């Protein structure tokens, strides 16, 4: 996909696709203009558009899985490797990289740069928890690796954390090393209807504060004129006996003591809208509904992050007509909001909950003057100094980050 295709229009003077770290370093050393790295281009709308793009640097030719040691559950792969391609190879050994962002075709480098994650972050965390090593080419062509190929390592600063979510502003990520997990053999889901934001939070935290170990706890919500409605889904992934036992216990928790009878047992083959047979019942199933793990779509899509227990307040702060998903016990949600949404007011309403709202997608008509990131916070001066040290001439993805960095 081209940057233009995902709603972000920033034509590049020239496009290159280096095939190695050395070629990438040569490119940066041999030029002086602005460089914007992209992978498959699925998340180019996630940050503010660059001020300038003299060179669009595609990482798609950096596409080798360079080292895979199944016994160690570690893999080294170049930045342009698509996540799906990596997963395919890992699946042959019943392993996986426990990251599940939905963007189709997304590359590892792009996932790191945009810090993309999905529902299973509840169990496995995000890029920062799984990336154990990274190699980046800095603005002046310096090739810098940090971390390593072992799961435990505290030698030196962990620069992988800095490149995560930096949208290429500190360097071009060329290679990534990951901690892997075994692929669980069985799946069970439990779904429950949600009536109101408080109810959603009550259900979610009943599960989250139990001894059950769901891999995801996702809310599919829609803000009506008066209140929030939707569906909560708990996903269990483990051995067949474990998921069966946990799903039953979870259904009991969600149905509440008084209405255990309402639990619908058996596979609840979801309809196109992902609802089970009887929308008023807690249902146990095995298949995932279509909405699971997908980002909402609409004229403006936001990523919300907040203190986890503030879920009902966050849902209530969203304007009627908004809809989306939330990793219900984590404190992260995705919202498609009406185009006239007052972003500044929304951000102010989230602030007491340590909340933020970042624009992931916006209709081209809405982009002009849009504040993608919101207020930069008191660490912005420090962020600026970090950017200055890594990229003093501001040639890498200028303007894409928070505060126009």
């Amino acid at each position, binding site marked *: 996909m081209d940057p233009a295709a995902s709603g972000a229009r920033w034509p590049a003077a020239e496009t290159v696709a280096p095939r190695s770290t050395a070629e990438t370093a040569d490119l940066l050393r041999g030029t002086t203009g602005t460089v914007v790295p992209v992978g498959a281009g699925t998340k180019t709308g996630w940050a503010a558009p660059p001020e300038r793009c003299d060179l669009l640097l595609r990482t798609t030719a950096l596409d080798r899985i360079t080292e895979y040691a199944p016994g160690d559950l570690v893999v080294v792969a170049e930045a342009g490797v698509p996540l799906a391609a990596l997963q395919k190879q890992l699946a042959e050994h019943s392993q996986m990289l426990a990251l599940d962002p939905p963007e189709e075709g997304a590359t590892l480098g792009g996932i790191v740069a945009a810090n993309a994650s999905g529902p299973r972050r509840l169990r496995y*965390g995000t890029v920062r928890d799984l990336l154990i090593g990274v190699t980046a080419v800095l603005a002046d062509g310096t090739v810098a690796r940090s971390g390593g190929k072992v799961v435990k390592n505290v030698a030196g600063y*962990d620069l992988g954390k800095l490149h995560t979510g930096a949208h290429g502003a500190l360097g071009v990520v060329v290679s990534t090393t990951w901690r892997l997990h075994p692929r669980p053999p069985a799946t069970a889901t439990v779904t429950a209807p949600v009536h109101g934001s408080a109810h959603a939070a009550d259900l979610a935290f009943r599960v989250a504060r139990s001894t059950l170990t769901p891999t995801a706890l996702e809310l599919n919500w829609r803000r009506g004129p008066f209140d929030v409605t939707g569906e909560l889904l708990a996903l269990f992934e483990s051995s067949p006996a474990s998921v069966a036992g946990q799903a039953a216990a979870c259904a009991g928790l969600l149905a509440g003591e008084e209405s255990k009878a309402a639990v619908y047992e058996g596979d609840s083959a979801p309809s196109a809208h992902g609802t089970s047979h009887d929308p008023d019942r807690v249902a146990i199933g095995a298949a995932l509904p279509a909405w699971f793990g997908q980002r909402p779509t609409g004229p403006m899509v936001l990523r919300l992050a907040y203190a986890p227990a503030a879920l009902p307040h966050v849902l209530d702060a969203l304007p009627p007509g908004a809809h989306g998903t939330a990793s219900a016990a984590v404190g992260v949600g995705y919202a498609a909001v009406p185009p006239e949404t007052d972003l500044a007011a929304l951000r102010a309403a989230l602030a007491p909950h340590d909340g933020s709202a970042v624009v992931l997608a916006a209709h081209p008509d809405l982009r002009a003057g849009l504040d993608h990131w919101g207020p930069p916070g008191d660490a912005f001066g420090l962020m600026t100094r970090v950017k200055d040290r890594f990229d003093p001439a501001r040639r890498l993805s200028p303007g894409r980050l928070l505060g126009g960095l």
Partner: protein
Amino acid sequence: MTPARASALAAPLRAAIGAAKVLTDPAQLRTYECDGLATVRVRPALVVLAEDRDDVVAAVRICAAAGVPFVARGSGTGLSGGAVPVADGVLVVLSRLRAIHAVDPGNARVTAGPGVINLSVTRAAAPHGQAYAPDPSSQQVCSLGGNIAENAGGAHCLKYGFTVNHVTGAEVVLPDGEVVRLGGIAPEHPGLDLLGAFVGSEGTLGIATEITVRTVQAPETVRTMLVGFHSVADAAGTVSDIIAEGILPAAVEMMDALAIQAAEAAVQCGYPEGAVAVLVVELDGPAVEVDEQFRQVERIAAARHAFETRIARDEDERALMWKGRKSAFAAVGRISPAYYVQDGVIPRTRLPEVLDEVARLADAAGIRVANVFHAGDGNLHPLILFDDAVEGAGHAAEQLGFAILDLCLANGGSITGEHGVGVEKKAKMADQFTPGDLDAMHRLRCAFDPAGLANPGKLFPTPRLCGERPGPHTAEAPRDPALGEVF
């Protein structure tokens, strides 16, 4: 500016934070000469016993204005010399910042001062069925501030992750005295993940004055087993097999014959008689899952010739199994006049060969080595025994330790898994990283601390100045006007 002598700061420090919090008496200063790496000792010019954030800010500003280096110190249990003072510098002790500010089970967070002891966090969360997962063996004494500075690990980090995976926010006093909040209660924040970079920075990027950590829900079931082997290779092979089979135990710890012997003498843990190596394997989670995995582990161990598998029947038996492991460092201190703890990491599949090679290196050097370590992570802790009354013995022990680190690197590993680089291993950084790698790390250091005042002489193999901040883009948050008025 020519740097002032640190001792000249006593008067302004006393004026700023109170006389009782500033130590200059040589006898008192001696307490702070070293951390857990007792072989490196430096007496600081001054010690500040900070009681709150404002004390830290005042101390750091006074240091910054005078160009005097400062070193943060938590409980002083670090094993790489990270908290070793600078002779002409100020040591800022954070132990008195030990208030737990908020226990917030709803958000699964605890916010506390940096001097709070690791175990206190779990104790505070326990009434809510929650725990703070990172559990270094020193958890009864080490501080949260030291933990985040070293990115501390522990036995249960195999499943739950290290300190960095559990810290969501910190208030940090930067080396020029500016106070910033990195992260917070929410799981993520817009902008660069400076918190992630701060964790594990060994006191070289500033001083944490408040820390927010995530707590985890206590599991339904915990089961612990002790497995005895007649060979180290079989125990190591069992670890590799468990991991390769896709089981993720809460902990897999290993001890060899010498470590077992020491622990037995010290705490009578009753480990299997005649064992050349034991594994402590702990599984937790839903009961069904734990039972299944337990059987798998038993099968794997049996195939590797385990001669005894003992399952803790109650909390007392479980505690005894762990007591042997957790007291092992101290116990080794009783069978040798002195010992030196190394900390290196290897890929888990290499455990059998590498442990073999460690034994060979030890034999060749004529030095006894006890191994007690986080086997599931491939994190070796060879305890190198020596007699400090014998001239050159300490040096020989250190040389053997470095040879073991070379072995870790040759096997694709790391020179430290949890104890940090500190002063001890800074030279080794140049073996693990290229000049380009180190240059990038140095840039981060310069962004936080252009004057190089925070814990200088640690982590980096060669001292380097930052020079002028390059480039045309110099937009910066306004400097605190008070900064210039300290003197």
